[in-house]
């Protein structure tokens, strides 16, 4: 059988990953560069978001319009975003077109033109997006929940603050690019109908001379934690609850994941059953696991009418406490098949696979096969999950509410 995975780190620090997917015509690329919200320079929050916009406004010999039109002519479905650790650029199309577009992506991350008017417009767009948050109470809540649950700089929002964005200059952005954009710890991944030899040659040719960046690390400060209310005359009260979990590389990781699946995996999950189905308290309720390299959290959300908000919060917290009483075999079986099936079905998309193998490498330093994930899920026992839950009672909670009135937090 042909080799399925490729992993190679070049002398300048860039890691190339690839997965050959039989039967696919498409190819997808993910490129992660170490410019994320957690390493935005002090007093320049939002800088990575402005840069992610700016580098696409012309690169190499192509100006703004030429670059966009060239990528469009290849039919590339493109995305770009800023996460906690990275700026992420992605594209997908017929596999050959993705490879053809590589030199242009090499220009984008190594030789962006960063024009002045483009900088002004990009910063203006970032400020407009920020102004829009108040019109979307749920988004506002989730941004604040992360900010108050996670230590700084990890909890910082990639959207930045108005004060910092207004002061940001083109020179700041250019300096920031030189500091944070480079091959050190960068990852470029491909999935789909890809030829490993061709890929290695192309990456070496276009990214082999990419010069290392100094990088930037921001000192860590503890989160403010616990309870916050933001008054807003919204139609619903929006409730966010966060508490610490364990990281993906912890030996008990799958026990922790199973517990979250049981809490909020499908429509038979405990939160959906108790809060929505039995009591009809809200339409949207759930919790999910979120992990960085350094630490992890469970984030929960419920949106409900103001007069039912207290009952919703009480019920939500009661379900979190009930977890430490243990879970049943049936619940665990459903959680296992749910996580296995979603891993396999998500694996049918080349874009999703390119993203997953890049994430795997960032967290674990290697790619996991679907078989390995399946075996790890199968190996979890109900005793393990219950022991984990007994020794790791949910809490301490960070609770943020957005709505007309604050709520009482149950003991």
């Amino acid at each position: 059988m042909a080799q399925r995975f490729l992993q190679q780190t070049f002398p300048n620090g860039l890691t190339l990953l690839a997965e050959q997917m039989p039967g696919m015509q498409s190819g997808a690329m993910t490129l992660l560069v170490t410019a994320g919200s957690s390493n935005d320079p002090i007093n320049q929050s939002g800088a990575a978001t402005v840069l992610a916009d700016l580098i696409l406004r012309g690169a190499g010999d192509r100006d703004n319009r030429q670059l966009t039109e060239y990528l469009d002519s290849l039919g590339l479905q493109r995305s770009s975003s800023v996460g906690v650790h990275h700026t992420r650029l992605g594209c997908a199309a017929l596999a050959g077109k993705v490879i053809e577009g590589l030199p242009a992506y090499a220009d984008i991350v190594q030789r962006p033109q960063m024009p002045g008017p483009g900088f002004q417009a990009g910063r203006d767009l970032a400020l407009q997006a920020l102004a829009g948050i108040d019109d979307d109470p749920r988004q506002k809540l989730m941004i604040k929940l992360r900010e108050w649950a996670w230590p700084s700089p990890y909890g910082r929002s990639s959207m930045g603050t108005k004060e910092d964005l207004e002061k940001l200059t083109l020179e700041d952005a250019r300096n920031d690019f030189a500091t944070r954009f480079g091959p050190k710890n960068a990852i470029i991944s491909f999935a789909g109908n890809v030829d490993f030899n061709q890929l290695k040659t192309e990456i070496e040719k276009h990214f082999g001379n990419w010069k290392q960046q100094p990088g930037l690390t921001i000192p860590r400060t503890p989160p403010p934690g616990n309870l916050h209310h933001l008054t807003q005359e919204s139609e619903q009260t929006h409730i966010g609850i966060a508490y610490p979990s364990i990281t993906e590389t912890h030996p008990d990781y799958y026990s922790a994941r199973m517990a979250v699946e049981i809490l909020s995996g499908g429509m038979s999950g405990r939160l959906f059953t108790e809060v929505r189905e039995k009591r009809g308290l809200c339409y949207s309720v759930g919790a999910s696991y979120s992990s960085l390299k350094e630490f992890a959290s469970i984030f929960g959300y419920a949106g409900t009418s103001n007069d039912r908000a207290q009952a919703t919060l009480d019920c939500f917290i009661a379900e979190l406490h009930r977890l430490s009483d243990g879970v049943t075999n049936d619940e665990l079986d459903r959680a296992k098949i749910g996580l296995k099936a979603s891993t396999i079905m998500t694996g049918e998309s080349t874009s999703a696979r390119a993203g997953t193998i890049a994430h795997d490498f960032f967290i674990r330093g290697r790619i996991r096969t679907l078989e390995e994930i399946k075996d790890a899920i199968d190996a979890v026992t109900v005793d393990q999950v219950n022991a984990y839950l007994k020794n790791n009672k949910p809490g301490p909670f960070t609770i943020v509410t957005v709505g007309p009135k604050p709520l009482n937090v149950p003991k």
Partner: protein
Amino acid sequence: MPLTFQHHQLKNGLDIVAEINPDSHSFAAGFFVKTGARDEATDINGVSHFLEHMMFKGSSTYTWEDVNRIFDEMGARYNAFTSQEMTAYYANVLPEFTERTIEHLAHLLRPAIRNEDFTTEKNVILEEIAMYLDDPGHRLYEKVMESHFANHPLSLSVLGSADSIKKLERDQMANYFKSRYGPGNMVLSVTGRLDFDEVVRLTEKYCGDWPRVNAPRENLNPIYTPRREYLTDAKLNRNYTMGMTPGPSSQDDRRFAARVLADVIGDSDGSRFYWALVDNAIAEDADFGFYPHDGCGSFYISLTTDPERTDQAMKIALDELNKVKTDLKDDEVDRAKNKIASSLVLSGEVPIGRMRAIGSQWLYNHEYRSLEKDMATLMSVTPASLRQLMKDFPFDPMTIVTLGPGEKK
């Protein structure tokens, strides 16, 4: 990656359409029912969507807990949605659960509609309505549809109002179900790894005794009159503006050209709106899109702006719509076609995407279109066909609505 198509009709009139992909790792199945808000009497507005929720509350043999548990025991990715003209129920599973999925979806589509569940779920629907009131984009869309389609049934809200939902009775819903949900008004769409003969046998086993339902849909011609409206909500920060104007329908062959035209004018990147409005930050978002409906269609403009920049942005958008009629370039049409071609290839590789595409296509047109056929039709679109399209649908009349804070004190 050879995809093959199969079709079979059961004796009771239930159509089964399948696109088989032996390379796939999963199986997807969905019932698409030709019913939605546009088929509702105004006094029961919201019943299609509320009924979609009640389908998950159990059949004569299952309770709501059984319904949820069985889906989760298969590790299914499952959901349902209701639009103005369609309601769909679907699941994506590993191939070993093919029979259980068809059996379970068949149970879903024969709901008991128990009084107690109806009362509890009413609260969930009211919460969903409240949730969307905190979403300016959704509020604006409902208002634009209401104004643009005026007396046409497409003006009806999918969710209904808090008032219509509070008044709705269990028996009104049961009657609506009886009159709309049956073979003759729905299709079962299956894709991915599957044995078609087996799927037909199973569908006969679980759905073969459903009575045929003839559920005609009134297809009035909408009467459009140009409008400019403002909705004020002092607690908003931004202005949200939508303009809607006639375009080709889901049955109209010009819909392929319409999709290309929409990308040329208003794709999120590299389009005319992008360069005229977003690249320079006059608008935070500026889209131009195409909604084909059953029997008619719409193009729409969507803008998010600072309140003081709305008039300027709208003027630029309307100027672009005028200009493109006379200065459309060959290369921008080619670029839009290339982008759409990529999205066709990518969607063809994932069973759940194709299940939705072939299910809704069959519901509207009783036609199967392979990816190759869609691709060939797309490639046959020319700048001349776009110019003709703009003569047929000149972006006039237009309904424009702005939702925002109004004059700041």
